[in-house]
């Protein structure tokens, strides 16, 4: 869909000629002439203006009544007055009206000092009130939720929070109760407002009515400093502003970046900062001594790690977690490959396609951006649940559908929270993404006139547990919607033993939709499992790829093979950079065995989760994301910079420095003196990052695909079309056996588990079942079931989902107890507990 093009027009404001884009709202247009028009209810992020607060009344020549500048588009030749007596009186009147019921308790209000109501009262108010009647009173404050306090006396009923709930997050929980002067904000059912994005209302509230419970009474605005960085708790990589007081993070606010987060944050991103300052955090180096980890000096920890790794030279395997920066990943792969003469390093949880296909999928011509999701003609959401995998994309898709008419199609095994927004939903059996892509490829062929593929559609669709009609409809929607199609897919789609085949099928589909030609506004966008999954792959943290997706001297093992290698004694040391494979990776038992067998396990960790606590021989304290200096790469190729907001906590050190020191002790001087020198080395090693500096990345990041160095992207790959091999059939389910699907909840994170405010959201295992299957198993929502396979089993609470295809059960991974990673699929048995 072409982006709206804006023509500049000239209008007059307060006697000055001003140029501004046509049809932007007058409030924004006035800024082009350095004129400020006060607003309360107007917030462009919330969509169309509502004109409720009446604060922005201005005079426009030719229109008898005063007009709300928030809802009046700028037109050529318009003559606007904001400083006339009439306007002054009207604006003063609105301030007076708003303050008659406001408690004016600014001295004890968290908002005091950063409050639009204070500022506007000062700037546009009359300075005195003629209202001597009693003000309205409410019980206050009340917990709107465990995270948000509501003070209804301070509320000026601007509707922002209600609009957020109704039109942005679409959770439809907040409403205005009662009428007129008795109106108040509440949830429609009186239950707490718990939703993945609820915290945003504290940030858009223009008064102190909605405040963050964890931040309540923690600081006054003059006590704090803001520090911009990037949230690395998920692949969305939202831009944030840390509120810092005395080297402690007290709050996280959004730092609007339209190309990344559109100005919103999820509640994990907003509240999990608490994990930076909890007692559970590891802030001193530790060494296993007499079977338990004991805090030791850096010297001892480094020398033990160097000794252990040195002994295992040639037999070291490294696993890298998603929160690792490009710099750390780059240094570690050098240590593993060059200092330790090993070759086994991986950053993906379940393997990846071959190097050629990896390059093809990452090829600049194919890449869509986050903003494209909003402007595309159609978006195919493929094997990905944004609200869990990259929450902020969920809001972007809702915006595209609601405001720009994007046609959303969903092909997934698990029902999506976006189902209601989609034109079309296709379900396939867990793990059969390859077959579904094959069927879609064939169906797109049929839609393009290749009727010979008609039989393939039915056969492949069946192998995916779907049917020809459903896939045919999907193909029709995608091929008829328009040129700009974006496929947003989850990393798991191109993982596992058949990753190559799935990748080829995906490229075929992309080719059929003409996405391989480098069209702007269309393409593929992969949501990696780890925050910096894309960056880590590009700086060489893959078994079969060096920095810049170059062929390494020797190919290595992927994560699963590393586990097998360690368990089998071929690898004797393991390096765990920001990852606890026992918690985070599939095959829990295999990892326990691997860690048991390894003689040296060096880990960088901020919490002693089970795998680290039981198996690490050396633990280096990991920096929190508020302490880090470095870069990460957004799923759409945007390099973003992490800037330290606070000093290192406890004895924590910069991890690039730790890695460099370790390397030196292993006999390889990496020549690293400062953080930026690593970035510089990185930019040299990755041809398509060439010349990139922290300065260039700046505050909003830069997509490498948009830089000249893009020509450095390696060749030696094909974009298809490929001949596809027949995929295996979906495993046959029956009355007793279900196809197992897994998902990682947005709340399944150690940061959530240890944050006092968010702990209540930390998930327990639940088994998502279709109502049909539940009836067959004779279980109800909330009852317990046992899910088992090959002699192991987990216990879970039943959660019914209407849109779940019968024969599948979904369990959560990456949780401490009863994790799905204990079970080996593809089939499991489910019975009532």
């Amino acid at each position, binding site marked *: 869909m072409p982006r709206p093009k804006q023509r500049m027009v000239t209008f007059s404001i307060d006697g000055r000629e001003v140029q501004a884009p046509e049809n932007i709202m007058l409030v924004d247009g006035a800024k082009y002439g350095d004129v400020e028009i006060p607003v309360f209810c107007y917030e462009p992020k919330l969509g*169309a*203006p*509502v*004109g*409720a*607060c*009446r*604060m922005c*009344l201005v005079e426009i020549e030719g229109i008898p*009544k*005063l007009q*709300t500048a928030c*809802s009046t588009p700028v037109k050529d030749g318009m003559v606007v007055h904001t400083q006339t007596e009439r306007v002054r*009186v*009207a604006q003063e*009147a*609105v301030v*007076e*009206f*708003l303050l*008659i*019921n406001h408690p004016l308790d600014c001295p004890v209000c968290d908002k005091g000092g950063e409050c639009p109501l204070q500022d506007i009262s000062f700037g546009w108010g009359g300075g005195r009130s*003629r*209202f001597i*009647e009693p003000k309205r009173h409410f019980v206050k404050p009340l917990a709107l939720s465990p995270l948000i306090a509501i003070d209804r006396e301070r509320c*000026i*009923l601007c*509707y922002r929070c209600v609009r957020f709930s109704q039109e942005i997050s679409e959770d439809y929980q907040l*409403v*205005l109760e*009662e*009428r*007129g*002067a*008795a*109106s108040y904000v509440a949830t429609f059912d009186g239950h707490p407002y718990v939703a993945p994005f609820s915290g945003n209302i504290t940030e858009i509230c223009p008064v102190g009515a909605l405040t963050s419970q964890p931040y309540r009474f923690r600081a006054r605005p003059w006590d704090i400093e803001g520090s911009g960085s990037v949230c690395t708790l998920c692949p969305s990589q939202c831009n944030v502003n840390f509120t810092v007081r005395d080297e402690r993070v007290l709050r996280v606010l959004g730092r609007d970046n339209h190309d990344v987060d559109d100005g919103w944050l999820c509640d994990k991103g907003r509240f999990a900062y608490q994990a930076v300052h909890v007692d559970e955090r590891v802030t001193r180096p530790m060494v296993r001594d007499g079977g338990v980890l004991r805090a030791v000096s850096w010297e001892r920890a480094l020398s033990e790690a160097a000794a252990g790794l040195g002994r295992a030279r040639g037999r070291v395997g490294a696993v890298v977690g998603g929160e690792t920066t490009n710099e750390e990943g780059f240094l570690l792969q050098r240590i593993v490959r060059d200092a330790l003469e090993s070759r086994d390093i991986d950053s993906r949880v379940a393997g990846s396609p071959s190097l050629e296909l990896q390059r093809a999928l990452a090829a600049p011509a194919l890449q869509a951006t986050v903003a494209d999701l909003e402007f595309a003609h159609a978006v195919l959401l493929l094997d990905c649940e944004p609200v869990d995998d990259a929450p902020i994309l969920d809001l972007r898709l809702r915006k595209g559908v609601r405001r720009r008419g994007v046609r959303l199609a969903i092909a997934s095994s698990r029902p999506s929270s976006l189902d209601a927004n989609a034109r079309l939903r296709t379900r396939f059996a867990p793990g059969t993404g390859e077959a579904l892509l094959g069927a879609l490829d064939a169906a797109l062929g049929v839609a393009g006139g290749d009727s010979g593929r008609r039989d393939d559609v039915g056969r492949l669709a069946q192998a995916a547990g779907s049917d020809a009609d459903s896939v045919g409809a999907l193909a029709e929607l995608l091929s008829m919607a328009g040129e700009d199609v974006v496929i947003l897919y989850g990393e798991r789609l191109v993982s596992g033993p058949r990753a190559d085949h799935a990748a080829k099928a995906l490229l075929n589909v992309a080719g059929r939709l003409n996405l391989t030609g480098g069209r702007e506004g269309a393409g593929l966008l992969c949501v990696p499992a780890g925050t910096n999954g894309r960056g880590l792959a590009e700086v060489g943290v893959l078994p079969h790829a060096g920095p810049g997706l170059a062929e390494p001297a020797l190919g290595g093992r992927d994560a699963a093979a590393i586990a097998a290698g360690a368990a089998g004694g071929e690898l004797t040391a393991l390096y765990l950079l920001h990852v606890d494979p026992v918690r985070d990776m599939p095959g829990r038992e295999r990892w326990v065995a691997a860690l048991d067998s390894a003689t040296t396990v060096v880990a960088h960790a901020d919490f002693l989760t089970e795998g680290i606590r039981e198996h690490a021989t050396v633990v280096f304290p990991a920096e929190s994301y508020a302490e880090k200096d470095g870069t990460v790469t957004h799923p759409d190729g945007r390099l973003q910079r992490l800037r330290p907001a606070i000093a290192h906590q406890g004895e924590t050190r910069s991890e690039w420095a730790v890695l460099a020191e370790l390397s030196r002790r292993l006999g390889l001087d990496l020549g690293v003196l400062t953080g930026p020198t690593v970035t510089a080395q990185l930019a040299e090693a990755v041809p398509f990052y060439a010349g990139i500096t922290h300065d260039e990345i700046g505050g909003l990041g830069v997509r490498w695909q948009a830089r000249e160095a893009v020509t450095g992207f390696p060749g030696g790959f094909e974009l298809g079309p490929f001949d596809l091999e027949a995929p295996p059939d979906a495993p046959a389910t029956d009355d007793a056996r279900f196809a197992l699907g897994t998902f990682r909840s947005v709340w399944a994170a150690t940061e959530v588990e240890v944050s006092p405010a968010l702990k209540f959201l930390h998930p327990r295992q639940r088994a998502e079942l279709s109502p049909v299957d539940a009836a067959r198993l004779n279980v109800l929502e909330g009852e317990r079931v046992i899910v088992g396979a090959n002699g192991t089993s987990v216990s879970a609470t039943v959660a019914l989902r209407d849109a779940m295809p019968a024969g599948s059960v979904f369990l959560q991974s990456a949780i401490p107890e009863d994790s799905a990673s204990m079970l080996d699929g593809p089939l499991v048995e489910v019975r009532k507990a």
Partner: protein
Amino acid sequence: MTDLLLFKNIDEPDLHTLEVYERRGGYRSLRKALGMPREDVLAELDASAIRGRGGAGFAMGKKASFLPKGAMDKYLVCNADESEPGTFKDRELMQKSPHMLIEGMIIAAYVIGATRAFIYIRGEYDFQASRLEAAVEEAREAGYLGEGILGSDHDLTLWVHRGAGAYICGEETALLDSLEGKRGNPRLKPPFPANQGLYQGPTLINNVETLATVPAIVEMGGAEYAKIGSPGSTGTKLVSVSGNVTNPGNFEIELGIPSRELIYDLAGGPPDGREVKFWFPGGSSSPVLTKDDLDLAYDFDTMAKAGSMLGSGAIIVVDDSNSVVDVALKTAKFYRHESCGKCTPCREGTNWTVKMLQRIKSGEATPMDLDIMASVQDRIIGNCLCVLGDAMAMPIGSMIAKFREEFEAYIEEARARNDALTTDEAPPEALIQGAAA
């Protein structure tokens, strides 16, 4: 000169049935209209120069012509949420002659090319809603509604939707929100309903009386209709007269007759020995006029020129036995209760005004409060999202302006009464602490 067009047969027994309505010439206009091109019917409506009977007085033909042409989902909505205090004309019309409204709506829908129409009727009009529902059913069975009406290519489905009793839902955009199943709050205009109304589709929304007049216009021709009434206020008007009159009720008049004739000759004037103190010419939201204005012609332009408005055509007469303060408080309380709360001046201004009036009544006000109250009304007028705020501020403002002396006298009297209570009389013995012991 009464009962000219709409009320011609209004008291005919069983006029609400299709049989009697048809016997009295009903649905003839529909046949005639369906035989004409849409543009010609629209031209007749335009030529009639009929102004909307709901309150705003916007020319109906002009409004209908604003709707985009061409095939798309367009809607016709009849505003039957007659909630303005003093207004009860639509009730009688719907109760006694529902088919006249339905016929008018079918013609109007034909003109704009709408295939779906709604009557949004206030929930309190339960009996009238049932009558309408029965009439719609009759019309459907007779082939006046449904597909291919009377053999033409015009389709129309008509729903009767009951509101839940909010005055604000008579505001056209709030009505549309409510009809869509949302909380009835006014929308920002533009876009106007003619462009983006119900379900974002172009929508023509008219009052009951306006739509019910359509068959008469089609029958007699627009030009002929325009000869009735006065220039700028053509046609006949149903006027509800209530308050201190001996013969309250609905009267159909030719627009432009002297107001005195309406209040005294038709409605019987105030009871013996009293005289008109002031009157609302167009429902409780119109600025009040006094007995000096009784000889003004009752039409849109004259009322506007006198600083008030014809509104929905509802005269409320207040005679000299009433205190202006009581009327002001009652009026303000109504609008405070009905304010939706979306925009600031209305939400806070109505509430503040009521509190000030209550203070006047309880003897805790000074004449200075009158200035504040007048200023609050000024600051509401023209600054709100919809006209509900103005609907309180205009009459209250006019009462303060025209009866300031009475307000001041009332304030002084109430204060004196309070002073007497607090200073002259000692509290009863039993209330003095320890007196019993």
